[in-house]
């Protein structure tokens, strides 16, 4: 509401452009470093970026990489949605009701510390070598960390703002959407970020152990062929998707949810 704010969009645009440049430069630097190390090593087990890029194109053109990548992404999406939904619900309940928090805290600590491999093996043994077991195993690994973060947020919810909603008899669903959840957004964003990072990794292990498709399965295959170029090509494609999700979904979403702070 002051004079300086007239220039704000321009300043922000410049800042964003600068940020994008820095991000791009760091990626180019990484690729350069890789090329140099590959040249020095001069070995089949460390192909350079160009060789890997060539493999990436070959596997993409054959349709094999997009197929397996899509399957993996679908598993990631379902496991992520499941983990966030269940973790958020349980986290809110545990954050708001002390008795339930006490009752479930032991199970939560256990869940946080059970090795991912154990959950995966047990899910496959109990539910069979299928996608339900695979997605369930991934979600089970992630739910406890979502619960912990959301619970922290639910505990920090301002009772003074809830009192406003109560005084004006704001319906429960509106209270949840306009009073309660906005206070949880920073925690939910944190849980989503760390959640995606963990789920990418675990999905591959799950695929390697018990599925016959997906990026994890392909990596296993190329490992047996000792085809490091293809392994790195899949990794590269995967990294590209991760960057896209971060840039096109997570960061704009975060910006939208926190724009009132500016």
């Amino acid at each position: 509401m002051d004079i300086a704010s007239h220039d704000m969009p321009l300043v922000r645009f410049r800042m964003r452009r600068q940020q994008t440049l820095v991000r791009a430069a760091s990626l180019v630097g990484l690729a350069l470093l890789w090329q140099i190390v590959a040249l020095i090593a001069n070995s089949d087990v460390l192909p350079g970026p160009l060789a890997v890029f060539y493999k990436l194109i070959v596997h993409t053109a054959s349709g094999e990489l997009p197929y397996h990548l899509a399957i993996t992404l679908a598993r990631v999406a379902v496991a992520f949605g499941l983990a966030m939904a269940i973790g958020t619900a349980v986290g809110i309940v545990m954050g708001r009701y002390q008795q339930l928090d006490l009752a479930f805290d032991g199970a939560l600590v256990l869940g946080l510390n059970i090795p991912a491999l154990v959950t995966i093996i047990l899910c496959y043994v109990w539910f069979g070598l299928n996608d339900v077991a695979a997605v369930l195993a991934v979600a089970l690994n992630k739910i406890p960390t979502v619960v912990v973060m959301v619970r922290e947020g639910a505990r920090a919810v301002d009772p003074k703002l809830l009192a406003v909603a109560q005084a004006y008899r704001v319906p429960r669903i509106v209270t949840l959407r306009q009073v309660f959840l906005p206070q949880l957004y920073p925690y939910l964003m944190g849980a989503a970020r760390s959640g995606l990072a963990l789920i990418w990794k675990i999905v591959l292990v799950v695929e390697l152990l018990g599925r016959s498709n997906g990026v994890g399965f392909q990596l296993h295959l190329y490992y047996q062929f000792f085809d490091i170029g293809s392994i790195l090509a899949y990794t590269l494609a995967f990294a590209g998707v991760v960057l896209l999700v971060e840039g096109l979904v997570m960061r704009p979403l975060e910006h939208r949810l926190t724009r009132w702070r500016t």
Partner: protein
Amino acid sequence: MSGLRIHIREKRFDGAPVLGECTIDAAPGEFIALVGPSGSGKSTLLSLVAGLDADYDGDITWNGAPLSAVGESPAHMGMMFQEPRLMPWLNALDNVRLAEAERVAREPGYQSNAPRLLEEVGLGEAQHVWPNHLSGGMQRRVALARAFVVEPQLLLMDEPFVSLDMPTGNRLRRSLLRLCERQRPLVLFVTHDLREALALADRVLFFGDTPARVLLDHPVEGARGKDLESAEVASAQQVLLARYPQLLSGILDPSQVQTYDEDTA
């Protein structure tokens, strides 16, 4: 009997009584100020009436029937707190509209009054501004618009204009009285500023003692909306304090307190 009747037998916090026996009767449209030292239970009393705290022994009735169901706030109630308490992620308009959510759910086709009320408190231009871009005085204007958007029959105000400079406070007090003129709610206005109470209210209730009770029910002479710094308010304050020198410390008759002190010494 018509209007509000508050009869508290006792209210405790963690076992310690904070409110003792007290009865307050108020007619519809009346403007009642509650004055007393901090910790004398005025805000507590307000939160009991607001239905924000159901853990007390007593009855609060409106026209003879319970004011609200247990654990619920009364309908047609506006409330202003010590802080503006706006949702920082909602703009001014949506903050006012939040108070209408109940009406919207109940009455299909309900037309929002929020833009008109923001206009009336002088914030017609600032409807789409986030609260943290508004000054303290403007944030309170939004809270004032929110309190009136529900067309309140009962208006609870817990030191709503505290820590504002005098001109800003005066403007807000004028806005409040103008809105009251049209809506005619019953107002319970907590303040620690005796001049504010004498300038705005029809009646001032003085709180004190432990556990707190109403020490004095003082009718205010003259019309509402006196200037806080006027001679009229100053002289009314002088007369009152000459008669009860320690009234604002929550003591009605100092001599009684002294004998009490001597007894315990």
